[in-house]
């Protein structure tokens, strides 16, 4: 069985939960936090960070590494991320398989890449640089997309697998993103899984999305949809126990509601492992 660090079930650490998390009052196995939110000089964010890090394992999840961009990697950003890694000793460090910056301008979105050999080679080389700086393997996450490029020569799942193999990095498999992209581009979500090198998957994201016909939008502002639960079940049949967390960024419900969703994930996992 693949060795996975920090198994169990976590939540995204968001401001409404800061105080309770800092006090160790939230019954989760770990928290994932957005790296950029804690790349600040001091004050309350870092006090919260240190307090939460004392009580829970943490995973750092970035949104601005720009692994797929053609701008040079931002050395200052990487050093700040490294400082954060040293500070909290996270169980995992992840970012997205996408581009986020161009010509020195940050777009603050997870923008799609063409699925080409050129892109595989380019992104893998940049992941290698990041892993050298951080002195650890990172996880790359599949993003939701609303457009694919006609120049792509392979499909998304093969692209994700090829990048992970070429870079020798891990994968953060976002099950909601698979469902969203499968709907938007008309591919089969179950077939997507067949391409994934399961031994590289170290974490799973679950989240809700918005139906905005004809597209699904990855909004993280709804409960997890049934097709996502179903694909999660199928994913676990392939993977076994994988650290799983729920991302909720907007329309954030009471904590008890998220913990109930997390219990659902836990039960699905237990049933999958028992089968």
């Amino acid at each position: 069985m693949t060795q996975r660090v920090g198994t169990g079930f976590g939540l995204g650490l968001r401001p409404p939960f800061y105080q309770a998390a800092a006090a160790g009052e939230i019954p989760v196995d770990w928290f994932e936090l957005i790296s950029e939110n804690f790349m600040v000089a001091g004050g309350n964010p870092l006090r919260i960070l240190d307090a939460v890090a004392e009580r829970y394992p943490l995973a750092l999840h970035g949104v601005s590494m720009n692994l797929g961009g053609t701008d040079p990697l931002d050395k200052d950003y990487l050093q700040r991320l490294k400082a954060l890694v040293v500070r909290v000793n996270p169980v995992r460090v992840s970012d997205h398989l996408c581009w986020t910056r161009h010509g020195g301008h940050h777009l603050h979105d997870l923008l799609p890449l063409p699925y080409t050999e050129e892109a595989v080679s380019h992104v893998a080389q940049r992941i290698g640089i990041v892993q050298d700086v951080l002195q650890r393997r990172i996880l790359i996450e599949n993003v939701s997309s609303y457009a694919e490029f006609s120049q792509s020569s392979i499909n998304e799942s093969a692209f994700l697998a090829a990048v992970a193999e070429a870079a020798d990095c891990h994968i953060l498999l976002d099950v909601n993103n698979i469902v969203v992209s499968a709907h938007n581009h008309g591919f089969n979500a179950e077939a997507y899984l067949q391409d994934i090198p399961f031994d590289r998957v170290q974490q799973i994201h679950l989240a809700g999305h918005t139906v905005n016909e004809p597209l699904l939008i990855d909004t993280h502002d709804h409960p997890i949809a049934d097709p996502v639960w179903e694909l999660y079940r199928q994913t676990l049949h392939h993977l076994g126990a994988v650290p799983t967390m729920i991302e909720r960024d907007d329309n954030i419900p009471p904590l008890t509601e998220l913990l109930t969703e997390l219990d659902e994930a836990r039960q699905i996992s237990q049933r999958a492992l028992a089968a």
Partner: protein
Amino acid sequence: MTDNMHRLQSEFQTFLFSGRNEQELQTRIAESNDIPATARLAVYRNAYYIRLQEALAHDFPTLLAVAGDARFGKLSARFIRANPSRHPSLRDFGRALPGWLREGEEGDLAEVAALEWAVLEAFDAADHTPVAAEALAQVPPEEWEYLGFDFHPSVSLLKVSCNVRECWSVVRNDKGAVPALRDTEEERLVVWRAACGPAVQAIEPALFSALLGLKDGRRFGECCLQLAEQTSAEQAPAIAAQALALACNSGWITHIQHDTDQT
């Protein structure tokens, strides 16, 4: 080696910023699921503007309340077009807003944005331990002339000429409808991070001048000379000492530089 990716990303970015090359970019989009490329691309362009506008609304709630939704929507859209983000974190996106407002057509709102940005900077400024108020009392009187002071990174000094502090306080404390912005006598404000969070305090003009000089790196003696030009040679040392006592008691000073530090 990455010419194709570079060109594609340039085109995509141009589309996000202006939308003017949409037809050209549409030819790059794969057809699938009978969903038109225009609908696909619209998701990205809308999200780009909405995300940045939400970041500004989050960081400048008083500006939003004072300007109203419609005016805030228009000014934030213009700001986004004129100031693409240069920071990995959205936390920094609004940094240029106060200056952009001051120099543009919305100058009446610049002081509101400046105060809110100072508050945000105070919130997550670097942590430094303030010197104890007693530390000053231990300095022999003959050394005061040469003393310099490091201020806590959260401290900002602002002059405003409208009821910005009142508006900020109403919004900050959720006290109902924000008052209309109106001109007032010039007010001098100190913004800093107190134990309970960012704080804003109005202070006397003479104390403000003294603090401004000290924060700019002037020695205590230089500061007194400067103050003497505004007040009198007799009053200046007492005012400077009062300003310093206020700063120390409020936790705004993190280090006292003695003359020997200059070397």
